[in-house]
């Protein structure tokens, strides 16, 4: 097992380039707490080393990663210099690594759930732009059930059911009626916005959801308490964060290690061939899309009854779309997508903390995750290959 993993590690110029990227990050890192070097010289030296490694990799023909290392080196020098110019007080306030990482996990969780849903749907050949709406339905019906039925477990169940229903509508239009999947998915977003907004106003009115709603509990790992760095991050996390981690592993297992996953992927790559060998394209696609709705809704329910413990109209605020970007950047693979979900989670966590620098610019930092998505989609897209039949309706013969 370990040998197999070692065999997959990058070698030669690729390894040099990846090392260069890490060295570039280190150039920034030395200027931050807890290292706190107050002079830019080390950052510049380390950054130049990163650029050199990148240049070597480019000369060996590793273009993309090599340039990544060069950019990381230049960025490391620039950001390191800025960090040495800003006051220690500000830095200590913003860069609290354990808190940043804990917040990263919180922000990444809804994205991870929705992204796993997106992977299933798209792997089966159905574009799911309605993830946003399915998340929103999950957020609302989750909190509604938790409030009226008094139990977060039922909240999660009802949320998954609501998301599944929305997905069923999308599936019916996309699969049976062969409608344009992007238009249909967008309609789901409109519908979810209308339904949740309508019921929210009708049931809760101006006061909003009550404060004493049954919440998804945190998992306390008391034996981690004393551990340096790991303790504060993992010691007290919401149950859903652990479930998200389990979902990612399960998604990978199901998609790539079971016959079911093979069927889903076959239907998404070449539905005609799958049909010929006796796989029901329609049934597989229905199942995948409904599952994606359930997963996205769980992500939404985490937002409403696990994270902020209230509901607002349109509270998902584009997270479903970011999840879609995560799916694309992650090359339709669970672990790579999870890595990107963490990246976006980190940028959201950072955006929450940066306002220490400037009150008025606080709102500007809110745009950070979206700008990052834009850059990531533009930069990564050439490398990611979608399932061959995604977005194409299949007509039985």
């Amino acid at each position, binding site marked *: 097992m370990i040998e197999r993993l070692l065999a997959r590690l990058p070698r030669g110029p690729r390894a040099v380039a990846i090392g260069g990227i890490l060295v570039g990050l280190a150039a920034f890192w030395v200027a931050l707490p807890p290292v706190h070097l107050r002079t830019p010289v080390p950052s510049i030296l380390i950054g130049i080393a990163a650029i050199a490694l990148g240049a070597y990799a480019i000369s060996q023909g590793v273009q993309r990663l090599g340039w990544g290392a060069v950019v990381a080196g230049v960025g490391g020098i620039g950001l390191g210099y800025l960090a040495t110019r800003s006051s220690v007080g500000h830095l200590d306030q913003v860069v609290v690594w354990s808190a940043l990482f804990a917040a990263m996990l919180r922000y990444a969780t809804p994205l991870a759930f929705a992204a796993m849903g997106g992977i299933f749907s798209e792997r089966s050949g159905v574009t799911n*732009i309605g993830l946003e709406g399915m998340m929103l339905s999950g957020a609302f019906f989750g909190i509604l059930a938790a409030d009226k039925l008094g139990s977060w477990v039922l909240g999660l169940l009802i949320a998954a059911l609501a998301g599944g229903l929305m997905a069923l*509508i999308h599936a019916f*239009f996309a699969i*049976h*009626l*062969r*409608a*344009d999947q*992007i*238009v*249909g998915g*967008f*309609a*789901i*977003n*409109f*519908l*979810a*916005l*209308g*339904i949740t*907004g*309508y*019921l929210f*106003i*009708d049931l809760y009115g101006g006061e909003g959801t009550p404060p004493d709603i049954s919440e998804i509990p945190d998992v306390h790992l008391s034996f981690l308490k004393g551990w340096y760095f790991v303790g504060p991050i993992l010691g007290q996390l919401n149950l859903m964060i652990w479930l998200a981690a389990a979902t990612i592993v399960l998604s990978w297992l199901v998609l790539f290690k079971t016959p079911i996953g093979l069927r889903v992927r076959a239907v998404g790559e070449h539905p005609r061939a799958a049909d010929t060998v006796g796989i029901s394209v329609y049934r597989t696609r229905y199942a995948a899309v409904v599952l994606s709705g359930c997963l996205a809704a769980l992500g939404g329910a985490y937002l409403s009854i696990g994270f902020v413990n209230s509901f607002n109209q349109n509270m998902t*605020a*584009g997270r479903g*779309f970011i999840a*879609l*970007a995560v799916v*694309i950047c992650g090359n339709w693979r669970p672990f790579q997508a999870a890595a990107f979900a963490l990246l976006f989670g980190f940028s959201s966590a950072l955006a929450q903390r940066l306002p220490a620098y400037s*009150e*008025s*610019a606080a*709102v*500007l930092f*809110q*745009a950070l995750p*979206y*700008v990052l*998505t*834009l850059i990531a*989609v*533009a*930069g990564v*897209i*050439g490398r990611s290959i979608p399932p061959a039949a995604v977005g194409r309706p299949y007509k039985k013969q």
Partner: protein
Amino acid sequence: MTEGPTEGGGKVENPRQGGDYAPSVASRVAIWHKAGGVAVPLLTTLLAFLIGGLVVIATTGKNPLTTYKAIFQGSGLDWFFHVGSFEIGIPFTESRVWFPWDTSFNSFAALNLQQTLIVYVPLVLTGLAVAFAFRCGMFNIGGQGQYLAGAIMAVWIGSSLPGLPGFVHILVAVVGGALAGAVFAGIAGFLKATVGAHEVITTIMLNYVALWVGAFLFGLGGPLQNDNVGGESVPVSNDVLDESKLNVFWGDPLLQGLHVGFFVALAGLVVYWITLNRTTLGYEVRAVGFNPEAARYGGISVARNYVLAMAISGTFAGLAGAIDILGWQFRLNTNDIFTSGIGFVGIAVALLGRNTAIGVSLSALLFAALLVGTSTRNLDPEIFRPELASNLTLLIQGLVVLFVGADVLILYLFGIRRRARQRQARTQE
């Protein structure tokens, strides 16, 4: 789509033979398309309102017709039904001629209709924005961001540069807003043309960028926040200068009368039609939209058309933002930025209007009436709570988009009826 002749349990049916001739579903739909393709949009709208009505019954137990009637009256469209013998002034002259409708603006219907037409203007323009990108095979969900970019630019230009003559000031502000929208959409077009980033994701992300940048600019302590005495505590821009406000040609300027931007929207419809149907650019755009590979083979630069089509699309949306600012809003506050959804309604307008100029015009009127008719100001709260009604509008929008994307639904429904009839016929035998 054609139905095989052997359908119906092996009994061969030849439509040209015998007395019980029934046209196939496909031929029926073909007739609808020959009739200008209005049948599907009409049925779609009807179906959406029907389901919306069911929602009203289910949640409030009230008669949906009363609600719809109240919305209709709130929109001011009943103005057209008060036909009589009146007079209208001819613009730029003193003479008056006979006119079937009462153009004096003190009736409620006239006031409401002015509101509807004010909303109609940006809906036409954002609808055209979405429709133009559609014709090039792209789904521009970024109408909202481009609208905001135009509005931000227009409020900035309109509230600064004192001393410019009114006409020049308006021109600069409108062109600036349109350009801002064009550049903003152009980014998405450029990314699609160069690295192949899907425009749906990039335009959505750009929406949020525009939203937060706007919130930053006009927020407390932001660089463009109101700098008058007493304005420091309000997250709002400076007011547009008086000379850069658009003229009101129907109604009282103090009561938000209808401004001349209305004619810009009408001109936009004409420009849209001419550009698409009578220019080389329009031909190339449509060719790329039909089949990019074939267009490339025919010597058309697909990348160039993607960027151009998005930029033109953004121009329409940016224009909508600029005209809204100069026509009736006059200032931009952060709350408006967060709650405005004009660009998103534009998507429904374009889809329902089938991306044609006339269709966009009609569906923009429908959605403008819905939006104004359900606004807090115009809907009688005794009949239906306006804050509920605005969400009902969203719901109807969603249903319209859902159904309009699926012509096959109509086929499907007819298919069910047909199969049921066949089954019935068989059991009778």
